[in-house]
């Protein structure tokens, strides 16, 4: 797929001629993790410079969360089960959705600013940097003001739902849950980057932003609420249900072995597709207005 971590010429020989491919990848991954840390540090510093703006960001995300919590209020008011899910399980599922939204929002601003960069030719500057352009462009700004409220409320909801539903909390279950959660993070990044890449071909992308936001909201409710065909489409064709439903189903012991494999394969597949679309999109970049 042409590694996400490779530098501009795809030449990894500078990491040492005698090294194996794996150790080269490990060294590059270490370098990019360090870069991510630097991006995070600079993002946080620049956000805290304008504290009022930071607080306003928290307020915006809290407003969105209010809408998500309305769904919880409706479910608890009705007090019914959805398939095998009790209201406590549903709280866990919606909590996972809120938590995942926080992580998605952390880099979401980079996706939406992509269209401006393409339209105004600002991408030129990033193309000449000695690192993966996709990594730089999609992860350079991390918005902690949007992560904060979702992370706090989502974690609390997951904790309450987990405890009240009496789900196991041994090491294996927690480790498996965290692993699937990380897979979901990768799937979110890849799946929702693809539609934003359309900005290389169409100029204004507000409609795309609205569409992806609306698609993301399908996870606001557990997948069991939708019809069988919609569940299949949302699991295998456009795997948005995998993102927040699978970690919860794993905790409940309701995830079959086949689905477990799909939970790992779907993010990898989506990432490969996103990577290919990115490369194709970059070839269409005309550097207009720069």
């Amino acid at each position, binding site marked *: 797929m042409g590694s996400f971590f490779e530098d501009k010429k795809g030449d990894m020989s500078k990491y040492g001629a005698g090294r194996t491919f794996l150790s080269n990848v490990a060294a590059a991954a270490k370098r990019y993790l360090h870069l991510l840390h630097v991006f995070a540090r600079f993002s946080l510093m620049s956000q805290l410079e304008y504290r009022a703006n930071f607080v306003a960001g928290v307020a915006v995300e809290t*407003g969105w969360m*209010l809408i998500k919590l309305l769904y919880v209020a409706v479910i608890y*008011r*009705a*007090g019914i089960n*959805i398939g095998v899910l009790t209201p406590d399980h549903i709280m866990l599922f919606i909590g996972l959705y809120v938590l995942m939204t926080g992580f998605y929002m952390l880099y979401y601003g980079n996706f939406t600013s992509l269209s401006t960069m393409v339209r105004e030719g600002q991408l030129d500057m990033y193309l000449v940097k000695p690192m993966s352009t996709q990594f730089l462009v999609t992860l350079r700004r991390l918005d902690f003001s949007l992560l904060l409220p979702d992370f706090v409320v989502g974690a609390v909801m997951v904790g309450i739902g987990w405890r009240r539903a009496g789900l196991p909390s041994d090491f294996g279950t927690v480790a498996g849950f965290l692993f699937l959660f990380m897979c979901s993070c990768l799937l979110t990044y890849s799946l929702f980057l693809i539609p934003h890449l359309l900005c290389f071909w169409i100029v*204004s992308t507000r409609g795309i932003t609205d569409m992806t936001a609306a698609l993301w909201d*399908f996870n*606001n*409710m557990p997948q069991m609420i939708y019809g069988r065909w919609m569940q299949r489409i949302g699991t295998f064709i456009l795997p948005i249900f995998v993102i927040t439903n699978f970690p919860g189903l794993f905790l409940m012991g309701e995830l079959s072995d086949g689905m477990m494999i799909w939970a790992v394969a779907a993010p990898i597949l989506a990432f490969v597709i996103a990577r290919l679309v990115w490369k194709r999109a970059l070839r269409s970049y005309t550097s207009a207005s720069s």
Partner: protein
Amino acid sequence: MKPYRCVFRMGIEKSLEYRADFFLSLFSAVFPIIIQTFLWNYLYGNEDAAALFGYTYNEILIYTLLAGLVSKLVQTGLEYQVNEDIKLGGLNKYLVSPVSYGRYQLFSFLGEKAPQLVIMGAVAAGMIAFSVAVLGLELSPMRVLIFIVSLVLALLLNFFIFYSVALLSFWLTDVNLMFGTVSIVLVVVSGGVFPLDIFGEKLELLVNLLPFGYTTQFSVNIINGRFGWTQIGSGFLCQLFWIGFFGILARCMWKRGLKRFTAVGG
């Protein structure tokens, strides 16, 4: 009126400038409707939800079908433009022109809404026809007419609410993120997601007293047959009162704000 006719036409052209974007944005309004339809189907299919929420299955389904559309239709967006004009001094050119800035924004807003109104009107008509044919909604031409009038008033009310919020830019320099918060919270409190009276009588009273419910919930409850004529009459009075209130508030804010305006960057 001629300059405003041109502004209205410019608004139409502006909203049709990016057609793919325009239609994708409209299409995105369908997804929340699908999610909520599944939710209500499940709740009403497994529980006596009608007694719990105070809405019959048909009422809540028609509400879901139309609330998303109405909420999208009355949505503004002018606040960002007003903020930019005040912050960067673009307001100057309007001050020296023989036009009223408020009226300019109003006609531009109505122009931008016109194409949406035509398309969404067709979609809403399809949904209402579906409700009549499949869900057994009883509908008189009078109710349809009143629904349309309430929609126009809702559009005006939302314009004045957001114009007043936008004029805060005279006092606060960069309020873009605040606009985002206000807009989201208003979608919730206007009943754009769920009708708020399903959460109990206290919230129902609050919705009746505050202006926000009159931008979405009121219009939808006219067409789904939930409101009787008395409620419709008093609702219209409240809608008119709030339009007048925010109209006067915007006028006062404009007068006082203009005294603070320093025309920096213009």
